[in-house]
């Protein structure tokens, strides 16, 4: 059989395609030549890693930045949970991003790996909330521009209980008087409890994890968790577990489900669960977290922001983008609108608080919050903290004070290793 028209067509198609591919290779060669950083065409671009929720807002900010300065922004969308490790791995290759989104408690790791560079806010530093700047500081240096602060608060179903509780006992009494299935809900894990959510109760007994230096940073050598307040807290956990107020079988999902179903007037949670409650038609208010041990119940604050890469070849452009675009009221407000977390820029925060009682409620609790320690030693604490709380709540493992001492010793051992 001879060659048909069809096969000639097919072969010429392949030939053309391959010629195009070759041409593509050839033409792309010089453009990658520009990696030296001296060439204007290449330098005029910064790479920013964002997560899906932030991507849309950043797209607008990037467009504005490009329109104003001519510098292109290449936005790369990443899974938030993977950004830290990928950034640490990619930065040293010199091909990593210039700017990445992240959480402040990554800082210890990022600084120890030498992948982030300090950022100078100049005279704009007064415009951000102090806690956000504290959280984004490490060893006296500010690394990055924060955009949001997040902390938990006590969510109250106002149809069930009309007034904010004064302390933990009052809350339990009010909860019981409401006659619902549960007096109070907090999501715990059957294996790891939840030290993050239980932390305000712990601080109300006067037992923070680490002591603080004069500049507000945490001192890893001063482990405070095992002090007398800590032991009282341990005993308290056992009592609450016995009374059924704390239950490690009620996971975060179950707690949310039950609160949405109106089965409890109180739910200790963060702003991330507020939209579901309002969509469900619940009337909610955010109250200060009631104290269990007499002192202030201080939750952890988590601060989100954007870091600058130490290996960035485009530091000036990246800095400009961070400071005057990410740090602008417009972008901070837009980020607040998609994420629901209180803005880190005071002006944007004030505007958000004025318009939304829920944000205001969380913000008020947040005024009392402490940044979650970002020092690497914190990892050693998480390792033993949750399982011990689980054992205490479930009344296992014997004497609470002894168990708490054991945990403190284990943490100390892991830190000094």
């Amino acid at each position, binding site marked *: *059989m*001879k*060659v048909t*028209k069809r*096969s000639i067509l097919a072969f010429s198609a*392949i*030939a053309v395609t*391959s010629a195009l591919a070759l041409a593509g*290779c050839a033409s*792309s*060669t010089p453009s*990658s*030549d520009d990696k030296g950083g*001296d060439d204007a065409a290449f*330098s*005029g671009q910064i790479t920013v890693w964002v997560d899906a929720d932030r991507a849309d807002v950043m797209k607008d900010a990037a467009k504005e930045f490009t329109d104003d*300065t*001519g*510098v292109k922004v290449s936005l790369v969308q990443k899974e938030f949970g993977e950004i830290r490790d990928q950034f*640490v*791995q990619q*930065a*040293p290759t010199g091909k990593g991003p210039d700017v990445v989104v992240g959480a402040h408690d990554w800082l*210890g*790791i990022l600084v*120890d*790996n*030498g992948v982030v560079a*300090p950022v*100078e806010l*100049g005279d704009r530093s007064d415009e951000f909330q102090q806690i956000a700047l504290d959280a984004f500081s490490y060893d*006296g*240096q500010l690394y990055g521009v924060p955009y949001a602060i997040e902390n938990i608060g006590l969510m109250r179903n106002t149809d069930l209980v009309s007034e904010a509780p004064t302390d933990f006992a009052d809350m339990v009494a009010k909860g019981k008087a409401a006659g619902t299935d549960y007096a109070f809900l907090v999501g715990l894990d*059957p*294996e*790891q409890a939840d030290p993050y959510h239980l932390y305000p109760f712990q601080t109300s007994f006067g037992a923070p994890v680490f002591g603080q230096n004069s500049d507000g940073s945490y001192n890893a050598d001063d482990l405070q968790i095992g002090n007398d307040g800590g032991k009282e807290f341990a005993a308290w956990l056992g009592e609450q577990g016995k009374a059924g107020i704390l239950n490690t*079988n009620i*996971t975060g999902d*179950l707690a949310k489900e039950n609160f949405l179903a109106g089965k409890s007037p109180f739910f200790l949670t963060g702003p991330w669960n507020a939209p579901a409650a309002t969509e469900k038609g619940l009337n909610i208010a955010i109250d200060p977290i009631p104290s269990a041990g007499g002192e202030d119940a201080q939750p952890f604050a988590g601060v989100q922001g954007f870091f600058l890469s*130490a290996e960035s*070849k*485009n*530091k*000036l*452009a990246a*800095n*400009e983008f961070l*400071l005057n675009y990410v740090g602008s009221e417009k972008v901070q407000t837009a980020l607040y609108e998609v994420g629901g977390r209180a803005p880190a820029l005071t002006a944007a925060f004030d505007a958000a608080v004025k318009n939304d009682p829920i944000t205001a409620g969380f913000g008020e609790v947040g005024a009392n919050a402490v940044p979650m320690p970002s020092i*690497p030693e*914190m*990892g050693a604490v*998480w*390792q033993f903290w949750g*399982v*011990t709380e689980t054992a205490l709540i479930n009344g296992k493992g014997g004497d609470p004070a002894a*168990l708490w001492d*054991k*945990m403190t*010793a284990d943490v100390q051992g*892991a830190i000094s290793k």
Partner: protein
Amino acid sequence: MTLTQDPEHAAPEQATRGQRRATRIAEAAGGGWGLVLLKIVLLGLILAFAVFAALVLIRTDQWVPAILVVAVALLAVWVYTGRGRLPAKYLMPGLVFLFVFQVFAALYTGYVAFTNYGTGHNADKDSAVNALMLSAQERVPDSAAYELTIVDQLGELSFLVTDPDGDVQLGGEERPLEDVSDAEMKNGKAVGLSGYTTLKFGDIVAQQAKIADMSVPISSDPNDGVLRTPDGSSAYAYTSKLVYDEAAGTMTDTRSGAVYSDIGTGAFTADDGTELKPGWQITVGFDNFTRAFTEESIRDPFLQVLVWTFVFAILSVLTCFALGLFLAIVFNDPRMKSKKYYRVLMILPYAFPGFLSALVWAGMMNQEFGFLNVVLFGGADIPWLTNEWLAKFSIILVNLWLGFPYMFLICTGALQSIPEDVQEAAKVDGASAWQVFRAIKLPLLLVAVAPLLISSFAFNFNNFSLIYMLTGGGPRDITAGVNVGATDILITMVYKVAFVGSTSDYGLASAFSIIIFILVATISVIAFRRTKALEDLN
């Protein structure tokens, strides 16, 4: 079937489309010119790609990979252009991919096992020095912010700064600031100077790497600090906490006077042993392997975890195989009706992602609110995942649910390939159903599935996602003081040792994976040897 024909090729006898295609393929296999052309095009593409990749690699000074890429491309050309060399023609693509995705990954893991790669030792020494110097820059307390214009004279850049009092000064790299009087002013900021070109934002961006590195001394006294700019439009006074002496390779702390030097541990270390972070990557010999056996948090629970890993892997294979085989026999019986639908149902667990199923099971096994306790056990209070022994049982149960469809599939296939006449002959000889199964079906089946059972064992030996998602290795004995639980297998324990505590130790993790590899490989080799005996049956 309708026949379609090319008009100019109306064959006298009407060949079907299939016949014509067959003829064409046969001709092509004989080496038509079309095939030669295709071959040339494809090889051309491969060569072009190799040259492109090599150029990129050479530009980034990666000579070894560049040479390898070119060598492989040339080898491909040699293999596919000549006559003969038929085995190489078939094997080449597979071998290349095997090397890239398997051998290389394994070798690289081996290499990392001999380094200190991990948190604090993330990059090379240059990056570490760069990062240290960056974080060492501290703004002089209460110092003013300067408004900055960057100016250029014959390619040399200078800072033209206006301080808050309105005084204008000019300075550059190693040229301390000097007052200038004839600057062009705009809104109280100096924006130009005669004899100099003012850089616009685009120019600044184009030279940003250079500008970001510039440090302009404020005065001839180094203690006053230097001006640096983070954004090209303002400058601040900084002093450095650290001074790097490149010749001596030491870092000196300007406040305490402590000298940190490179003593071969991958970090600048002071005499009292304190290290500056970050450090850099170095090779550390067998340190990681020594640590793997001396590290307290792993040495103590090691035996317990090892035993459970074997129990888990063996029981997983046995239970899944038993159930899979049983179902395969049942559904292979000719009397069984609507087999197709049942088979689809059987395969469903296999179709869900394993980690998702594990999460769903974790919810169903909740002690108080889980589906199992509430619905199936009428509100019983069974601690499926929080009791040491029940948690182990639950793990095996869930793995059975996840794993039996695979065994069901391969057993069905193997059963169907056993010739009927052998079974009939046995029946005629008066064997019972059990005897037929025991003496004929099972041995023939094992010949086919034994290698798969071994691979299944190796897979379960490292079944990280199931353990991690279902129990997280727990429940833990909190009095033991180690972060290892009752259901932790080797790989999850390694994960905890190497990555929990928020620091990562890739070197240690790689050393562990090599140890696990040696374990699994030894067992597999022994097992394969023994299954050879089965093959004699055929």
